[in-house]
């Protein structure tokens, strides 16, 4: 029997699911090997038993957390798909500001006060922190990045359906810069987060003449003290450094010591 694969989306832009659909040349071959039972972008159906569940998006509300737990209970393997699911992504920046402050900025003081005093809105206050998937349920594999990398997705699926051990070495983005012979952002007078960021993206941003802003998340071995020092030697203020770390990585421990 073909493995049953499902995609679920939470708070995100659905760009990762789009990236899956964009694996055009191999998508039909993939359908020969697996059965897709849920795919918000492409179809709608509810399966009871899932072999591989891909979760896209961050978890922002308690009802989302409940839905995620239900998916986990039905799934043999659960994969966090993309930066939102893996680390909260840019929206996790909201975690640094009090919820009441957000309400005020968006709806004005009067409405902010109303949602605080009217019991019909009280349930909103229980859902005020942006979380990554692994903060709620066990995650078996991760496909990092904003958006996820099509080649990595295919490698993971191939490994899972063939029973091989998926391989994602904890190598920084620098490895791919050096293998592709890209000039380092630091040699262009810029600064970069590539040394502390999970590689696997073929260093696309550097290849395009930009730098790495860390969308694939912090490596376990990241030497943050040295990195902070390097950025400051290159002229970045403490605020600049914090903002750079928090662009994608607010949901991670990164920069936490400098809250708010």
């Amino acid at each position, binding site marked *: 029997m073909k493995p049953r694969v499902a995609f679920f989306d939470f708070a995100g832009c659905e760009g990762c699911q789009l990236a899956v659909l964009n694996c055009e040349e*191999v998508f039909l*071959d*993939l359908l*020969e*090997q697996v059965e897709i039972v849920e795919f918000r972008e492409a179809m709608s159906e509810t399966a009871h038993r899932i072999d591989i569940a891909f979760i896209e998006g961050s978890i922002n509300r308690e009802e989302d957390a409940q839905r995620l737990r239900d998916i986990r209970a039905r799934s043999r393997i659960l994969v966090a798909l993309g930066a939102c699911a893996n680390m909260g992504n840019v929206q996790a920046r909201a975690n640094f500001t009090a919820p009441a402050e957000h309400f005020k900025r968006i709806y004005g003081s009067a409405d902010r006060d109303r949602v605080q005093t009217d019991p019909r809105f009280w349930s909103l206050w229980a859902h005020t922190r942006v979380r990554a998937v692994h903060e709620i349920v066990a995650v078996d594999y991760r496909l990092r990045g904003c958006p996820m990398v099509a080649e990595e997705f*295919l*490698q993971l699926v*191939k490994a899972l359906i*063939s029973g*091989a051990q998926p*391989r994602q*070495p*904890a*190598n*920084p983005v*620098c*490895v791919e810069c*050096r*293998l*592709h*012979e*890209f*000039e*380092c952002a*630091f*040699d*262009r*007078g810029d600064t*970069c987060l*590539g*040394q*502390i960021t999970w590689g696997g993206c073929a260093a696309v941003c550097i290849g395009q*003449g930009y730098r790495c802003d860390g969308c694939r998340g912090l490596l376990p*071995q*990241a*030497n943050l003290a*040295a*990195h902070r*020092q*390097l950025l400051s030697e290159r002229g970045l203020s403490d605020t600049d450094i914090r903002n750079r770390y928090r662009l994608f990585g607010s949901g991670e421990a990164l920069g936490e010591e400098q809250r708010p």
Partner: protein
Amino acid sequence: MTASVAGEAAILDWIRTLGSRGPVFFPQKIGRQSLGFQPVRRESVLEFAGYHPTLAPPGKRLAPAVEVLFQYRSTPDRGLEFSPPPQPPGQILAGVRSCDLKAIHLMDRVNGAAPGDPLYLARRAGTTLLAVDCLQPCDTACFCAAVGSLGWRQGADLFLTPLEEAHYLMEALTPAGATLLAEAGFDPCPDPETHRRRAEARRANPFGRHWPVPVTELPTLLDHQWQSPVWSRHVERCFSCGTCNLVCPTCYCFDVRDDFDLAAPQEGQRQRSPDGCMLPGFAAVAGGHDFRPQPEGRQRHRVRRKFQYLGARHGGDSFCIGCGRCGRQCTAGIDIFAIVTDLIQHREMAP
């Protein structure tokens, strides 16, 4: 063997025409201030002046970043059929400096040692090397003279020495080089020795950076520095990013993986890609044990490979050829020359 003398412009024009017989690589600009051995086209901007070591060394053209080792296909009787990858095309690497030439020579030894690496050797056999001598240090990071690679000629098919007034002495060192030189049709030079001696007399002296002890003493020195505080001092800022391995002309470790075709899952290929001993997972083995978990242990291993282990195994004093790439491209500014300098000083301070 034959020799010629020609002007720089004429030589570069000639190199541009060589592209018609197969890929030719020559150092060309990458990004704002870097160089790389890039394919030569008719309109390529080529120059000998202003050379500093390329991001990746020319030897990486003999060991591509993704190399197919073999193709496989499973047969209906549950067996496996293997087929070798296609024969690599011939190529010319031009503008190779002595340091990188020595590195290629050392890699020839490593890959030629039994049982031999057939893919490397096949690429190498199809490669013509056109090397250039240096009369000035290429930059402040290099130390080729300290490790015996300055002026290295072995392995080159054609060897160019800069003469005065933008002319070069071109010496054919192999039959392939002689054929190439004859076809070029430059003025023959009856007395290459004199030209070369005169050029070498103009070479900067001392040349680049030096240690207070000769490189031949480093193996013994390293033997007594297993516990040195120098190791941890030089990794405080290390990101374990592997750059120092991946840009080094004598680093050759690789990782292997299998890949199959989704459309035809019974067919696939095994391929290899460079790996590096500074990367955190390099020494992890089955069961998850990592026998070199700390960056200081990895740094010590890298330095000992360059100055001790490989020389002991394959001959030659130093497998570091002094190009300075690792220090130049390390964003943490960790320089193998400075590590060795500290080890020497620390030995002298120790009782």
